[in-house]
C-alpha cells in the first residue's frame, strides 16, 4: 500500500485540472451541496470532530476556530483565506491554487455557510501573476455556474467572494497584519485580544484560515471523518502537502498522511543529491528551528516536531547538504527578517537590524567567540517581545544553528572568513561552472 495520500493533488497531472469542468469531473462541488443541505452548526461540528488542524503554521483546530464566531449577534461575519504564502521554503499553496483553485472555492462556500458569512476574501500574494489568473478565472466560472453569488445551488445561501491581491509584504501572512492590509492600511499586526473571531475585518467576527486548511474541507465533507482519521497520527489527523526542496535528487510536493518522516520521504523520492550527505534542514520554513541528520526519524506531525524542539510550521522541508555554510544560510534568513520587519515594535525593528550586523561580522570572521553569546543574548531579548511572531521567527535559525553548529561559527573566526566554497553548494557545481 502506498505511503502517500494524494487528495488535493490527485488530478494535478490532468491538463484541465484547474478548470471547473476538470474539477467537476471528479465530483467537485458535491461536498458544497451536501454541506448546504446540513445545518451550519452540523458542518462546524463535523469539521471539529474530523481533527483537521490549520495547515498554515500554527496548527490550530479549524472547526474550533469556526465555533468561536458568535452567532445571532446581528453583525456581518467574514471569512478570509490567507494565500499570502511567503515564509521562506514554503511553496505548497501556490501550486495548489495554480492546479486546483476550485478546491479552495468549494471549501470557502462550506466554511462561509458554517460561520454564516456572506462575504469572503482570498488575500493572495502579488508576486505570482499566473496563480492570480487561475484563481480569478475559477471565481468567475463559479459565479457563472451559480456556485457563488445569490441562492447558491438553489439552496438559499448567498456568498460574494473577492480576490484581494497583495503587493509584496511577508508580514501580511500574519493574520492581523493581513486584515489591516485588506482594510487598506499598512500591513502591521494588531494587539490581541481582541482576536479576529470577535473583532477581525472591519471590527467584525472573522475567521482567517490558510489555503490548504480550507481546501481540505470538501474532501472531509465528501468522504467523512472515518476516512480522514484513517490517515495521520493520534492528534494530527489527515493528509497534508510536504514541500521538499534544496539538495535532494527530486524536489517537489508530496501529499502524505501526517506523521511521515523525512527519512521515509527521502527514501521514496530519491534521497539527498548524489555523492552528498544531509547537513541541516527546516521542518516547516525558516521560522522553525533547524534540524539535522539526527532528526530524520522525527514524525512530521504537530506533536512529533514540537517534541523534538521545532515546529511543523508549513511543512516546508528545505534540505541542505554538507557543502552549505550554515552561517551564510542563517545570515541570509536574518537579512530577510530585517527586511520584512514592519517596524511597529521596537525590539523587532531595531533588533533584527543588529542581528544582521552581528551575523555579517561573524560570517566575515570578525569578532570573538564571546560574540556568539552576545548574539544569543540579543536574540533572546527580541523573541517574544513583539506583537507578532516575526521576531520569534528571526530568532529560530540563529539559536538552533548555534546549538548544532557552534564550531562552524568559530571556524569562521579562526579562518578569518567563510571556509566554504559557495559554488560547491550550487546546482551548477556538478556540471562545472556554468
Amino acid at each position, binding site marked *: 500500500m502506498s505511503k502517500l495520500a494524494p487528495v488535493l493533488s490527485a488530478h494535478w497531472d490532468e491538463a484541465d485540472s484547474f478548470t471547473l469542468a476538470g474539477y467537476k469531473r471528479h465530483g467537485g462541488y458535491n461536498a458544497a451541496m451536501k454541506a448546504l443541505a446540513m445545518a451550519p452548526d452540523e458542518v462546524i461540528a463535523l469539521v471539529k470532530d474530523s481533527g483537521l488542524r490549520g495547515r498554515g503554521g500554527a496548527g490550530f483546530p479549524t472547526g474550533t476556530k469556526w465555533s468561536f464566531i458568535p452567532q445571532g449577534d446581528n453583525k456581518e461575519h467574514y471569512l478570509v483565506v490567507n494565500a499570502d504564502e511567503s515564509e*521562506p521554503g514554503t511553496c505548497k499553496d501556490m501550486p495548489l491554487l495554480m492546479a486546483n483553485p476550485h478546491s479552495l472555492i468549494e471549501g470557502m462556500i462550506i466554511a462561509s455557510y458554517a460561520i454564516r458569512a456572506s462575504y469572503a476574501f482570498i488575500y493572495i500574494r502579488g508576486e*505570482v501573476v*499566473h496563480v492570480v*489568473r487561475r484563481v480569478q478565472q475559477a471565481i468567475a466560472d463559479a459565479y457563472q455556474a451559480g456556485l457563488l453569488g445569490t441562492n447558491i445551488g438553489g439552496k438559499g445561501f448567498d456568498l460574494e467572494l473577492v480576490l484581494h491581491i497583495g503587493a509584496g509584504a511577508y508580514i501580511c501572512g500574519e493574520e492581523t497584519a493581513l486584515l489591516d492590509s485588506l482594510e487598506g492600511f499598512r500591513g502591521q499586526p494588531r494587539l490581541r485580544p481582541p482576536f479576529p473571531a470577535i473583532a477581525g475585518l472591519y471590527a467584525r467576527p472573522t475567521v482567517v484560515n490558510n489555503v490548504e486548511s480550507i481546501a481540505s474541507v470538501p474532501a472531509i465533507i465528501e468522504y467523512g471523518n472515518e476516512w480522514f482519521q484513517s490517515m495521520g497520527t493520534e492528534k494530527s489527523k489527515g493528509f497534508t502537502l510536504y514541500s521538499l526542496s534544496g539538495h535532494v535528487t527530486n524536489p517537489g510536493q508530496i501529499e502524505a498522511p501526517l506523521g511521515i518522516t523525512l527519512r521515509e520521504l527521502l527514501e521514496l523520492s530519491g534521497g539527498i543529491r548524489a555523492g552528498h550527505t544531509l547537513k541541516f534542514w527546516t521542518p516547516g520554513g525558516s521560522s522553525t528551528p533547524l534540524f539535522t541528520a539526527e532528526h530524520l526519524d522525527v514524525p512530521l506531525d504537530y506533536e512529533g516536531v514540537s517534541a523534538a524542539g521545532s515546529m511543523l510550521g508549513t511543512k516546508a522541508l528545505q534540505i541542505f547538504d554538507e557543502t552549505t555554510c550554515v552561517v551564510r544560510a542563517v545570515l541570509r534568513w536574518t537579512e530577510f527578517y530585517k527586511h520584512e520587519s514592519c517596524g511597529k515594535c521596537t525590539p523587532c525593528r531595531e533588533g533584527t537590524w543588529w542581528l544582521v550586523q552581528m551575523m555579517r561580522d561573524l560570517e566575515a570572521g570578525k569578532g570573538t567567540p564571546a560574540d556568539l553569546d552576545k548574539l544569543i543574548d540579543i536574540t533572546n531579548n527580541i523573541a517574544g517581545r513583539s506583537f507578532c511572531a516575526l521576531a520569534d521567527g528571526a530568532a529560530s535559525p540563529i539559536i538552533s544553528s548555534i546549538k548544532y553548529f557552534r564550531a562552524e561559527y568559530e571556524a569562521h573566526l579562526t579562518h578569518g572568513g567563510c571556509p566554504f566554497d559557495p559554488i560547491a553548494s550550487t546546482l551548477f557545481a556538478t556540471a562545472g561552472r556554468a
Partner: protein
Amino acid sequence: MAYSSEQLAIFDSIIARYPRKRSAIMPLLHFVQSISGYVTSEGIEAIAAKLELSTAEVTAVSTFYTQYKPGPVGEYHVGICTNTLCAVMGGDAIYEAITEHLGISNDETTSDGKVSLERIECNAACDYAPVVMVNWEFYDNQTIQSVKDLVDGARAGNPPAPTRGPNSLRTWKENSAVLAGLTDGLASEGPSAGAASLLGLNLSKEGK
C-alpha cells in the same frame, strides 16, 4: 496626465468590489502602475480623491509594499531570488553574473529601459530553485546561461515564455493590470502543474 473617463470608471469598478471603499487602495495602486509603470503623484492624488483620503494616507500605504515602485522600472522587471535556499542553489551566482552582464545592480534599469533588476525574497517556488521572476511570472530551475538568454531576449523584444505561465511573457504594465484584478484571458495557458509539483502524485502512481 489626467485619467480618462474610461480609466476613472475602472477606478469605480475596483472600489465597488469591497464593502468599504478604503479596501480598494491596493488594487488601485496596482492599476495606477498598469497605466504609468509606477506609482505617480497623479495616481496618488486620484486614489486619495476617490477614497476621500489625504495623499499622505495613500502614500503611507504605497511606500509600505515593495511591489509598488516609486519610479519607473523596466518593461521586463527581473527578480532574482536570493533568499537562502535559492541563493545557495545558485541564485547568488546568477545575481552576480547578471549584474555584471547588464552593468546594473539592484533596483536599477538598463539605459534602454527594457530590463530592471531586483533581488527578491522567497517566491513560493523553492522546489524549482534557483527561481527567477520576470514581471512576476515563474522562470523555474534557472542557470547563469538561461538568465543571460532571458535578459538578452527581453532587451531584444523577444523574451522566452515563462515556465509555468502564459504562452508569451507580458509586459510589466500588462501584468500590473492583472494584479489590479482585471482579467487578460490567459488563465488557461500554461501547464496545470510543473514537474516538481507532481512528484508525490507520480510516486504514488508508481505504487510508492
